[in-house]
């Protein structure tokens, strides 16, 4: 059993990248790994609630919620990026803890495996 950190660093409509990170997260839970999610930089856009499906790109945001509900240990978000992307204090798709750089750095260092999406 490993401590896996899913690191989302790219915004929603960057193709299927986030969707395929989600698939990895669900597989990790299915194999009893301890899973944490961390949204950094533009990745915080994935936590925006109001987005609907782009006319050509499915909005997979809602299924992100499934990952949170299904047992991810911890969900963290880049506090500075939340501000830059106008999400500071906004309701997010998942209850994410706002983390400063030092805290995020510790989350990464204390994981056994970091999977970047």
């Amino acid at each position, binding site marked *: 059993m490993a401590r896996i950190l899913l690191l989302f660093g790219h915004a929603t409509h*960057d193709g299927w990248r986030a969707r395929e990170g989600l698939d990895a997260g669900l597989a990790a839970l299915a194999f009893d790994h301890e899973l944490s999610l961390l949204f950094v930089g533009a990745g915080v856009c994935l936590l925006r609630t109001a987005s609907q499906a782009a006319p050509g790109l499915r909005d997979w945001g809602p299924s992100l919620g499934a990952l949170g509900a299904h047992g991810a240990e911890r969900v963290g978000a880049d506090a500075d990026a939340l501000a830059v992307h106008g999400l500071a204090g906004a309701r997010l798709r998942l209850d994410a803890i706002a983390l400063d750089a030092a805290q995020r750095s510790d989350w990464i260092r204390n994981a056994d495996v970091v999977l970047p999406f």
Partner: protein
Amino acid sequence: MVISLLVLCSPASGQGASSALRFAVAALAAGHTLRQVFFHADGVLAVPPVDVPADEPDLEAGWAALAAVHGVPLLACETALARRGLDRPGLATGAVRLGTLGQFMLAVAQSDRVLSFAD
């Protein structure tokens, strides 16, 4: 006006491929002529038909409708496909046909505007 489009990115990588489709639909709606849509580089990933789950947007169906209703030629660069190991029989069975950069350059000569899509 006569317009041709060049699509350089895969449906998987971002919103570039779907933006091209959106532009194409809007251009036709505004009465312009689409001389050709050419898929080059990673854009050739539009060739293999994908059975898309119901709630996912189906780019391929969009292009297929364009070709069927407006007769827009949809061509993908054979060399780029071969370079990716995708020049297999049975892969180019969707709306996008195999073509060459030469055909694209012919369309360019006959177009008033040429737009590129990437991401």
